[in-house]
């Protein structure tokens, strides 16, 4: 076991080498590189085009509805397809189980409906 912990020496060596590499690279860059700051260089880089708008943009609350309904129907279909494939070999037990599963998801839909998130306005 002490064997195992002593092999952490390698990890330490790699860490030291990594730190050195970064230190040397940055020091060299600082010594060698020309220094000509201007305002343009401080703007946000957005694939080369001048950035538009604020970084803190708001997304519409309706996306929550999208997310909500997407999860319900997405999960449902993900399990329905393989279920349909093996239905014959398992039989009625599979039908009952899937009904329960869809029932649980339907409660989610019911909740969304009663909370009024299905109304767009």
């Amino acid at each position, binding site marked *: *076991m002490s064997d195992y912990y002593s092999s952490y020496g390698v990890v330490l060596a790699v860490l030291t080498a990594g730190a050195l590499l970064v230190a040397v690279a940055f020091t060299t860059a600082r010594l060698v590189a020309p220094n000509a700051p201007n305002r343009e260089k401080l703007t946000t880089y957005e694939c080369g085009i001048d950035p538009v708008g604020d970084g803190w943009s708001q997304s519409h609350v309706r996306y929550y509805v999208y997310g909500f309904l997407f999860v319900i129907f997405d999960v449902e279909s993900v399990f329905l397809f393989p279920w349909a494939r093996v239905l014959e070999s398992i039989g009625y037990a599979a039908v009952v189980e899937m009904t329960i599963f869809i029932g649980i998801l339907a409660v989610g839909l019911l*909740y969304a409906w*009663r909370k009024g998130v299905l109304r767009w306005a």
Partner: protein
Amino acid sequence: MNIDYHALLPEFILAGTILLVLVVDVFLPERAKWFAMPIGLIGVVGSLAGVLSLIGAGTRESFGGTYVVDEFALLFKGFFLVTAVVVLALSLRYFREGGFYQGEYYFLLLTSFLGCVMMPSSRDLLLLFLALELVSAPGFLMAAFRKGDVKSNEAGVKFFIIGVLSTAVMLFGMSLIYGVTGGATKLAEIGVALDGVSGEMETLAFAAILFVVVGFAFKVSAVPFQFWAPDTYEGSPVPVAAFLAVASSVAGFAGLLQLMFVAFAGQHEFWVPIFAFLSIATMTVGNLVALQQTQVVRLLAYSGIAQSGYILLTFALVTDDAASNRNAFAAAVTYILIYGVMNLGAFAATVAVSRRHPTLGVADFAGLRETAPVIAVGMAVFMISLAGVPPTGGFWGKLLIFQAAIERGGTLGPALAVVMLVNSVASVFYYLVVPRQMFLRDAADPSRLRVPALVTAVVAVAMVTLVAIFVLPNVFARLAEISTLVGLGA
């Protein structure tokens, strides 16, 4: 694929209740939303009856041995369901009067408890992971339930980010184990498969174990992964903090116990030093920082961290000797159960005070002997018990761990025992701060504190239980004895 429906009865009842609560809630008018609580309470009691009906029925397996209901599982299931009853009782007035979304709260709370109930039965990495996530995910939302309060939002976000991070680390570890063992996911199979690996694969297995341990260390708020806990507890609604401090962390320990004592038992030489470090760091840092706290929930949070340290100590006692391992396991289980009772009690007393003093400074407990005598006596008992001083149950809990440490022998066992002893003595200082306020200082407002009957009942029952455990330790020790047979069966 065999499914033992009777063995799954508690889970079925609880799951049905969860759906019922959600459906009923959306049709209730605003005034009657609190009605979700009695429905949930009936469901939890029904589920508890299901657990009781399984006692003495032997070990029952479902889903190809991945879901096992044995005495260890039943003990913890019973514990979680009783905790659920208590948290529901604490929640009723708090959430009814605070203008919260009540139906959603009870739905999320019960879902979390379903995860807790599944945890001790999960004997498979996949199920273990699912159960743990089922505990945590609703917790993120519940922590942020005081929507208008910045602190509560902070609590939710912190808990969420840490929770997701720890899950990712743990899942990575689990995937490595899956690879190293050649596709084993059942805990018993992993134990066998890991004993056979050697060389570089063994190193990889060690890394995997380390990742899994770190993931769980976040969940049980062990130092150095503890920093989220005080902020989250402080910002959450107090009943939610009680849930997080008791149910959520005990669920973490239930999973960790199974993993370490069953799946990874053969690699104990590797992970015992890790747990020794975690344990010492956790209890020392927890106790030292707790000394400086002036807010009661933060104090309880740091005390909870220190208590996690005591429980983690038992993991560091594992050796090749099966009998001594059984001792350590029994000590861990007993301590976890006693810890649950005393911590729930302390949070119940805090809920009572929070009605008049929502900020919950230590000074807000001043003169409680006049304004709410039952709560004051109860809180004093809980604090004394958390410190491990007789005549309370906490004393036996600490004594058992101490004994197990001494009996383990070697240098590590007694060394850990000494560290624990020193920590226990140091902890007395901050645990007695609250009783001092309650009994030696006078309240600014001497009128009687109106405490909901359910909260008073919880405090009284927890207090009586702790004293009863001290007087009749044999009855309680039996519980841990039963559970040890099973957890170490593999």
